[in-house]
């Protein structure tokens, strides 16, 4: 029965969609990482979500928290690099908020994402405008929260978040990186879109796509 909320089936569907969209954009992400990093972001993300999908498909779940906890653990032990611990932490912190829940509506998901984002920030110490995934995740979480306050549906909230994530992602282009590998480039990092902000946008897109109107 579809009530527009994120239940276990849709959570698993989300993981599948993330895997697919990351796969499709594997070369694109790696190319972005070539310009200001070390040409592995797409490869890392694709390896991680392939394993995460394998994992969640092979398990039975009673709550959505457990789904995302398995995603978190898998990312942590298969992605590596900077993105592995960061996305691992994002899903781990979010899953703790969703633990025991059969489904999530917009306010709950907004809270979970906020927890996830805080985990990323406290681990990576990146601030806004440091040219990282935080620049895409922060406006997205804020959009979720204000949509929740306005009483919008989960799908509507995710659509607004996605739009903000896209803007945040594009806003990284002129930035000079101060965190992550791109920071070694100094001024030369300006003019390139951040790969991690881009993968964050893609993850939000997968959440959005996984939910019916």
């Amino acid at each position, binding site marked *: 029965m579809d009530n527009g909320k994120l239940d276990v089936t849709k959570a698993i569907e989300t993981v599948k969609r993330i895997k697919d969209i990351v796969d499709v954009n594997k070369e694109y992400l790696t190319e972005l990482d070539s310009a*200001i990093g*070390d040409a592995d972001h797409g490869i890392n993300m694709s390896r991680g979500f392939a394993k995460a999908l394998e994992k969640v498909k092979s398990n039975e779940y009673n709550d959505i928290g457990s789904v995302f906890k398995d995603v978190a653990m898998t990312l942590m032990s298969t992605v590596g690099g900077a993105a592995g611990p960061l996305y691992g932490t994002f899903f781990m912190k979010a899953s703790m908020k969703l633990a025991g829940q059969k489904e999530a509506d917009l306010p709950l998901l907004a809270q979970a994402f906020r927890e996830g984002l805080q985990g990323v920030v406290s681990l990576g110490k990146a601030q806004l405008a440091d040219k990282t995934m935080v620049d895409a995740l922060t406006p997205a979480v804020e959009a979720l929260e204000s949509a929740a306050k306005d009483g919008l549906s989960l799908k509507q909230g995710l659509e607004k978040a996605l739009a903000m994530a896209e803007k945040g992602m594009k806003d990284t282009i002129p930035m000079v990186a101060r965190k992550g590998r791109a920071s070694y*480039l100094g001024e030369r990092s300006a003019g390139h879109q951040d790969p991690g902000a881009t993968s964050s946008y893609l993850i939000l897109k997968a959440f959005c796509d996984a939910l019916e109107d």
Partner: protein
Amino acid sequence: MKKLINEVEKVVEESLQGLAKAHPDLVKLHPSVRAVLRVDSPKEKVAVISGGGSGHEPMHTGFVGFGMLDAACPGEIFTSPTPDQMYEAAKAVNGGKGVLYIVKNYSGDIMNFQMAADMLAGEGIPVEQVIINDDVAVEDSLYTAGRRGVGGTVLAEKIVGAKAEEGASLEEVKKLCERVNANVRSMGMALTSCTVPAAGKPTFELGPDEMEIGIGIHGEPGRQRMKVKTAREIVEMLATTVVEDLPFKAGDEVLAFVNGMGGTPLSELYIVYNDLSDFLEKKGIKIVRNLVGNYITSLEMQGCSITLLRLDEEMKRLWDAPVCTPGLRWGM
């Protein structure tokens, strides 16, 4: 892309298998996670562990053995390893005197090692970390990721490994590692890029008459691109920055390390060493130890890096101490 490999997904795994088969007297593979362990697991010493992305061979896997590392945790090519690797490796080689993680300063390495350290600490296993950040090509700042760890790492692993082999305490070993890091500076350059197997094409493109100064070891672009210059001019550029940073002064005794990025012939590295030796002599800086060769590489990249370490008597003694690993060996 042309490489001597079978499948891009299996590059790291098959290379580790080859390493283990070639050196069964020195190293073995961990049964469950990707880690190279010293075969003789000595108990009465601090376990020294390092790790990082693959593609820099012989570092770190080739430095496992007597007098250097107890374990190395290789990630995918140019990708930091995951916490379970460092955690399991530490459990496997810790003899009771604790574990030192030698970590190169990259966001990914820092976070993954930190998580492993947290897990160990949670189990009451004494663990310390030292972050190596010797790359003067990168501006240092509290507000950024700071300087990368490059050539200094090799020297730290040798010297600190020798100290641990003597039976020093975790605290002593850690202090020494910090002292090495405080006295070492490096800078590198590339004549060509390199190709991550899974990416299939060069990380960056350099024109036929261009070079990249201030390159890192992940094939990431450097700070400045310019027309190629002579070895002497390149040495002057790199060494000036290195010397002025610490700064190294007339009368200092140093270890001079000319490192190849993987694709540059040894004969050229000796030309670089020849020029470096002249350069330092003019400044009154005395080379009392040296290392020339491919030790911390970036796949098939052509280029080199220069590392200077200001030596004290203890460091000299520990540098000279016997070492027996696949990649570095003397005194036994």
